Structures are given as structure tokens and as C-alpha cells.
């Protein structure tokens, strides 16, 4: 199998934008129906009262915050992975980056919705924005939720731009390949892109800077999400390990999400020549590392709690280890650790199928991890009188399912309007920079410093 080059790339990658089969519309309708169901569920929750959910005293956070952390975690797929791969200039990253960045953006959009779904009075959520009001009571900057607001907005802005910038040259490709109204739209989107060396250099510099800026932001985002828990004096929450633990978990689930998305795209858009077993193999190895890291963090968290032997923490500890939450807990361990270790650690199983199965396991396991952080702890706080538990209600399940559908929907629509693999980056791989280019004349070395 040879790599496609030149015109083949353009043809293959623009084709999904121009050819639409009935299957596309069927899937859009299906996912759209789920999204509408979720919307109805949310509106009915707003209309009838928050009590439609299964939240109760004392488990005040449930599915919504689980989903929030989960989706924010998934969002670390993209930007972080593609930023790191860009910075280390890993050649195999080229077909992967845009898939990953799109996941980031959509997962963030979905994740950022959950605080709104979760709060009791969503119509007042704008109070988190530091806007000047006559009363000057701006948000409480000492609250982790306000940190969340700032961090997620920064990350969303950053990753959206990180996704959009390398799309500009590809918009130009589509602009030149289409006619009529579509061409007009893409002409606007391409922002006057021509492809002069100056434009290429500015774009690459911008991507470098963005990659450098986005990595600490991504790390900070999930650290701050973990602060939502570790700032509250709740057994098993107030621990310093949560920051790195959450960041590792986020990257872990992000890679899993990316692998699933890539496998689906490969199948549906016939991108077998672009998303090759090599990519799955490499991402699988990365995920294996994260699985080990995740196991390490969980072991740390559990061992320290076990040794500390505080009565309140141990109540939560045994709840997850042996008592009511044990089935979920051990499912999580199998999904997040055992399964990836077997499927990704043994070379024979590290095929595309193996990676996808492991990824599904990880997605489930990481969702359970967040659930198991939130619910058992809240249900077993200090005073035995206030112990309780939580069962999700239909609105929560519907909204949860709807967000997965929303992710699929957004991703499908995205793949329909944007080449899902960066055309110019693939082609750029054919023109590697040699160590030294002899300048034609002294004058033309680097040009003068200008914008």
C-alpha cells in the first residue's frame, strides 16, 4: 500500500464534501431526533422544576456534573494531543490532527453546556460573566466555578481558533473545487487565502504559538475541573492528587474518543489510505501509557486513603471497593486498566479493532470514574444522618444520551463541510525542510523583519 500523494489527496478528501448519500441524511435525522429529545427533556426540567432529575439531598451533583467532567475530559483529545504532536513534529500526526481538534471543540461545546443544564436557575447563568453592573457585585473569583468559567472559555476560544486556522487553506481548496453558492461561502471562509510563502509561514508560526499556548491551558482546564471537587471538604475529594489525576484521565479518555472517531471516519468516508493501522498503533501505544498512568494515580489515591484510615474517607472507600458501588468500581478498573493493558499491551491485539474495543472500554470506564468520584463521596459525608444515594431519572438519561448524539451530529456535519483530514498538512509532509537551503543571493536570505 502506497501513500496517496498530490492530486489524489485533494480528490479523496474533498469527495466527502461533494458526495452525499441517503445514509448521511438518515443518520442526521436519527441523531437530530436524539438531540431534540434531549432539548425537550431539558426544557421540561426548566419548566417543571429541577426536581425532574434524580438529584436529591445529599447527592446534589449527579449525571450532569459527571457528563460535564467527562466531556471536558474528552476535549483533551484533541488540542492537547495534536498540539504536542505538532510541537515534536511527529510526521504521523498529519492525518490525525484535525479529527482530534474537532473532537476537542465539539466536546468542549457540549461539556460547557452541562453547567447550564445542571444549575437550578440557568436563566441567571450570565452572572458568572464579569460584566459591569450598577451594583458592582461581580463574580466571586475565589470560587472554582468562576475559574471554570474562565478556563473553559479560554480553552474553547483557543481550541476553536486552533481548529479554524489550519482549515483556512483547505477552505481555499474547496473554494477552488466547487461552484455556485457553495463557492461563495467558502470564498468568505477562506479569508482571501492564496498560498504565498508569507501566508504559509505566518500560519505555521501561528500554529506553533497556539500549540505552545494551548498545552498549559488544556492542563489548567482539567486541573481546574478537578478543583471543583478538591476544594470542597468532602471525603475522598479533598486531595492534592486530583489535578494530575484528572489531567491524565482526560487525556486518556480523549485518546479513546479520538480512536473511535477515527475508526468511524475511516469506515464511513473510506479514508483507509489516510488513517492507517500505524495511526491506531501509535495512538494505542499512547493510550497504553495513559492507562498505566491512570492505574498509577488510582493506586496512589486508594493507597493513601487506605493508609490514612480516616473514618469518613474509609466509609467512601469501602462503599466503592466492596459495597453498593463495587460493581461499578470494578467495571471501571477492568475497562480502564485491564482491558487496555491486554488489548494494547500485546502487539497481536493492537490492531484497529483491538484499539477500538479498548477505546470503548476506556470511554465507559472514564465515565464511570467521574460518576464514582461524585456520587459515593456525596452520599457518605461526615454525619451518618445525612448519608444517601442517587438514582438518575429519565431527564438525566435522555440528556446524557442526547449529548452523545449531539457529538455524532456535530461531527458528521463538520465532516460534511470541512475536509476532515488537513489537505495542506498532508501535502506539506512531502516537502520536508532540508537542514540547509543555500540562499540564491545574499539579499534574499530571510527578508526584513516585518509583520
Amino acid at each position: 500500500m502506497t501513500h496517496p500523494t498530490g492530486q489524489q489527496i485533494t480528490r479523496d478528501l474533498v469527495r466527502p464534501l461533494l458526495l452525499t448519500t441517503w445514509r448521511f441524511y438518515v443518520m442526521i435525522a436519527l441523531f437530530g431526533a436524539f438531540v431534540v429529545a434531549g432539548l425537550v427533556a431539558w426544557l421540561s426540567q426548566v419548566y417543571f422544576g429541577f426536581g425532574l432529575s434524580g438529584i436529591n439531598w445529599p447527592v446534589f451533583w449527579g449525571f450532569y456534573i459527571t457528563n460535564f467532567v467527562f466531556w471536558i475530559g474528552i476535549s483533551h483529545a484533541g488540542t492537547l494531543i495534536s498540539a504536542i504532536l505538532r510541537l515534536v513534529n511527529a510526521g504521523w500526526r498529519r492525518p490525525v490532527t484535525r479529527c482530534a481538534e474537532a473532537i476537542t471543540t465539539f466536546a468542549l461545546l457540549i461539556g460547557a453546556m452541562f453547567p447550564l443544564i445542571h444549575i437550578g436557575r440557568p436563566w441567571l447563568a450570565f452572572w458568572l460573566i464579569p460584566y459591569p453592573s450598577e451594583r458592582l457585585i461581580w463574580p466571586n473569583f475565589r470560587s472554582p466555578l468562576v475559574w471554570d468559567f474562565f478556563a473553559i472559555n479560554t480553552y474553547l476560544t483557543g481550541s476553536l481558533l486552533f481548529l479554524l486556522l489550519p482549515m483556512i487553506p483547505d477552505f481555499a481548496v474547496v473554494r477552488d473545487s466547487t461552484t455556485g453558492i457553495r463557492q461563495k461561502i467558502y470564498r468568505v471562509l477562506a479569508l482571501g487565502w492564496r498560498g504565498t510563502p508569507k501566508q504559509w509561514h505566518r500560519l505555521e508560526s501561528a500554529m506553533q504559538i497556539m500549540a505552545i499556548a494551548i498545552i498549559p491551558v488544556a492542563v489548567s482546564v482539567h486541573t481546574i475541573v478537578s478543583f471543583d471537587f478538591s476544594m470542597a471538604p468532602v471525603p475522598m475529594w479533598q486531595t492534592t492528587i486530583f489535578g494530575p489525576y484528572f489531567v491524565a484521565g482526560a487525556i486518556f479518555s480523549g485518546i479513546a474518543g479520538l480512536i473511535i472517531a477515527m475508526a468511524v471516519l475511516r469506515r464511513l468516508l473510506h479514508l483507509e489510505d489516510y488513517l492507517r493501522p500505524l495511526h491506531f498503533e501509535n495512538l494505542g501505544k499512547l493510550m497504553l501509557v495513559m492507562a498505566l498512568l491512570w492505574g498509577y494515580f488510582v493506586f496512589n489515591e486508594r493507597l493513601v486513603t487506605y493508609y490514612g484510615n480516616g473514618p469518613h474517607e474509609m466509609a467512601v472507600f469501602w462503599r466503592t471497593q466492596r459495597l453498593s458501588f463495587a460493581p461499578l468500581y470494578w467495571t471501571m478498573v477492568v475497562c480502564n486498566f485491564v482491558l487496555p493493558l491486554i488489548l494494547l499491551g500485546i502487539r497481536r491485539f493492537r490492531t484497529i479493532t483491538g484499539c477500538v474495543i479498548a477505546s470503548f472500554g476506556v470511554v465507559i470506564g472514564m465515565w464511570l470514574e467521574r460518576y464514582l468520584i461524585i456520587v459515593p463521596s456525596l452520599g457518605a459525608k461526615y454525619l451518618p444522618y445525612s448519608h444517601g444515594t442517587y438514582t438518575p431519572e429519565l431527564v438525566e438519561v435522555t440528556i446524557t444520551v442526547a449529548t452523545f448524539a449531539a457529538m455524532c451530529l456535530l461531527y458528521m456535519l463538520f465532516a460534511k463541510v470541512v475536509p476532515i483530514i488537513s489537505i495542506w498538512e498532508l501535502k506539506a509532509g512531502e516537502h520536508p525542510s532540508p537542514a540547509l537551503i543555500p540562499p540564491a543571493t545574499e539579499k534574499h536570505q530571510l527578508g526584513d523583519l516585518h509583520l
Partner: protein
Amino acid sequence: MKAVYGLYTDGASAQQAVNRLRAAGVVDADITIISGQPMEDQEFGHRDKATWMWWLACLGGLIGMSVGFGLAWITEMSWPMNVGGLPTFAWWPNLIIIFELTMLGSILATVATLVVSALLPGKGGALYDPAVTVEGKILVGVENPSDDAVPELERSLGAPAGALVKMQ
């Protein structure tokens, strides 16, 4: 607008065309090169590489940092509220806000620099041929040549093998 340009199938012949144009006395600023991908393996692909973007990103970060600090300071000092006995201006939490706004500042500055310096249609800049993206050609041309220079330019552009010279 008038322009003479050649379309080339590979980087080497494009580089040859550029070199011939230079030999014909055309200065670099007048040579337009358009390619469908960065051409790091050719000399012309390294034109216009120097940029202030990194410094502007740092400047944006500094502005973001000041905005973050100012926002936190003004907000907390204009209506001091006691929450849980924390100081009114608490450094640790505010560092998070300041950090995020620093990063936001540098990201926005980067993108603004990119848009202003490379994307918005600038001086001239109308020379283009869809063959660059559709057929993967590399375009080398001269915009607004003086009429008596055209034959010379056409000769230079047509010299490399497989060249396709066009007028616009």
C-alpha cells in the same frame, strides 16, 4: 490587473523560474509565488520567514495578564465580600484568572497578527489561479509588469521544463 505567471508541476522547476526572474532583474518583492502547501524543500519556500508574531504574542500575553490582574483587583476591591475568611484579594485563586487571561491574550494576539499580516487582502494580491489547489501547480508570476518587460518575463517563466505561461 495585469500579470504574467507560470504554472509548474514541481518545486524544482518553480525554483528555477524564480531564479531566472531574479536573473532578469526582477526584485524579490515583485515575484509572487503561490503554492498549495508549504514548500520547505525549496529556497523560495523560505521567503518572508521573519516575523514579529512571537513578540506580539508575548505582548498580548502581557496585556492579558494586566487585564486579568486589573479585573480581579477592581472586582474584589470595589465591593469587598467576606467569603469563608479568605482575604479580599486572594492571590492563589486570582493567579488562575490571571493565567487564563494571559493565555487568552497571547492566543488572540497571535490570531490577530495572522489575520492582519497574512490574510486580509493587502497590496495587490489578486494574482491567483485555481490550478494551484485543483491541479497542485505552483504559481510563479509578476504582477503589473511594464509592457516592454513582458516578453522577457515570459521567456524566463517559460524556460523550466513543463512550464505553462499565462497572462492575466
